[in-house]
């Protein structure tokens, strides 16, 4: 079942083209990671998807219905974690959740139960009666997330929920996302942090300058750029015959030595690990050998020509 679909979306701010014929689709139960440098159009895409801003052209469907048909009912089924911490500082954590839960139509014991559940999921049950002003950045972010999931949404949209949080809170947030997904929530997760996407996403969409430039599972994306592989070889002693043997191997593009470590760059598809190991064994003692696979970071760099955390302001 398709939860969200955007087809040929174009969005301009004045003359600045922010989304250029963007098409994406999300199925029920997925965790989709939306990656892109600053200014790629990620937040604009999320705002367009939830109807917070209009688009210049294209079609958006949520839960199988065009956006705009019964907007309030659609909003009831979505939880939106904004990039900014958007909680009320003069209400306690529990009161914040009661406010948001109340707007989603929760009342009485049902509301109390959902509030308690949301507090437990984000690990704030012990701090339920404290004001957010007394929270650390990570705790505020977790409360921000709890406010978006207090009504048990079917579709949770998270806009960079871990910006500026400590590693412990980040782990907690990622575990929360996994847990929600296990419970059946579909998640669209934008971030600057590649490792977060690698940790939780079942599928990745890479957005750059308003275009979807790649889409698929992490292994699909890595496969797209697997023109070469790197092998790390650790030997007892680096000798000239060893290096000559390695350089003579078919498909080897480069051999670099760092102390007792030899890094070999080869083309893929030549059974490299076995051949390198054989060549190295002939020349001396091998301590360890392993192939270094391309990462999502490499994919991003190859496709966009830039690191994920550079670029202008969004």
């Amino acid at each position: 079942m398709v939860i969200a679909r955007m087809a040929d979306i174009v969005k301009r701010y004045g003359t600045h083209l922010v989304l250029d014929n963007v098409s994406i689709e999300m199925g029920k139960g997925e965790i989709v990671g939306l990656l892109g440098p600053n200014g790629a159009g990620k937040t604009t895409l999320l705002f367009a998807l939830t109807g917070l801003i209009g688009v210049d052209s294209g079609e958006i469907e949520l839960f199988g219905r065009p956006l705009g048909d019964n907007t309030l009912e659609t909003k009831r089924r979505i939880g939106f974690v904004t990039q900014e911490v958007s909680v009320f500082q003069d209400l306690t954590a529990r009161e914040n959740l009661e406010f948001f839960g109340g707007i989603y139509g929760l009342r009485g014991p049902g509301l109390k139960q959902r509030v308690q559940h949301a507090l437990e999921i984000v690990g704030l049950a012990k701090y339920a009666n404290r004001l957010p002003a007394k929270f650390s950045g990570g705790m505020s972010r977790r409360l921000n997330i709890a406010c978006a999931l207090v009504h048990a949404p079917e579709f949770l949209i998270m806009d960079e929920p871990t910006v500026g949080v400590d590693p412990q809170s980040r782990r907690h947030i990622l575990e929360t996302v996994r847990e929600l997904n296990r419970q059946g929530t579909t998640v669209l997760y934008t971030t600057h942090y590649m490792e977060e996407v690698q940790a939780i996403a079942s599928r990745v969409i890479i957005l750059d300058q308003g275009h979807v430039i790649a889409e698929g599972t992490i292994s699909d994306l890595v496969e797209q750029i697997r023109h070469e592989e790197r092998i790390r070889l650790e030997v007892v002693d680096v000798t000239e015959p060893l290096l000559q043997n390695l350089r003579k191997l078919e498909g080897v593009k480069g051999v670099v030595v760092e102390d007792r470590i030899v890094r070999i760059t080869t083309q893929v598809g030549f059974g490299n690990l076995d051949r390198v190991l054989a060549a190295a064994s002939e020349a001396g003692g091998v301590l360890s050998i392993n192939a270094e696979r391309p990462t999502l970071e490499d994919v991003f760099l190859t496709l966009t020509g830039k690191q994920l955390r550079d670029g202008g302001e969004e």
Partner: protein
Amino acid sequence: MAILVVLPLALISVIGLVVGDAVDPALGIPAIDGVAMVIIFAFQLLGGNYTLDFLRSDLFSPRKWRLQALPYPPFCHALSILISSSLFSAFQGFAMVLYTHWVYGVRWGSFLVILGLLLFFSAFNQLVYMLIALSVKTDKLGERLGEVYGLGSFALAGVWFQLPNTLVFNFLARYGNPLSLSRNVMLYIMTGRYGNEALYSLAILLLATTALVTASIYFGRRKLA
């Protein structure tokens, strides 16, 4: 929040000490009654800051995206802020009315009618500040305009100093600002005299309220849709 209670009560106390048992020769009421009335209603003018603050922080800050993502139209949120702020400011004023009655013996007339007028005047001021919140681009500008409205009304009502004795200034001092309009109505409630002025003032306040509601709807549709 507290300053809108503590400061007026402090002013009433200090000025009350100065005027003692004197009677206002122009109005024929104890001077302390006039002082309490003007100061309590003058601070109602600034009570609109509640609406300004809450509207700007909820619907004109990054938090607006969270609120707009809720299944709840933003105008409902604006309206709830307007109503809550009106009630809060009016009851704040009413608490001061009761305090000045019990402590200083100010004769307010019917408390129910005073409460009604406070509710109306408070809602009027919240509407003014709502219009400001809807029509400015920055919070600072909103605050400055709010100050201009409040302090400008004090000045026009002759709270600080007597305005020049000309036809225009006399009109402005009597009917040309919300503080004078509410004072005219209050004088009638307290003394049973000045009925015509009270009627005209009430009519002007009602007309102005209608204009404010219309303008708020117009700007609200543009800014909160």
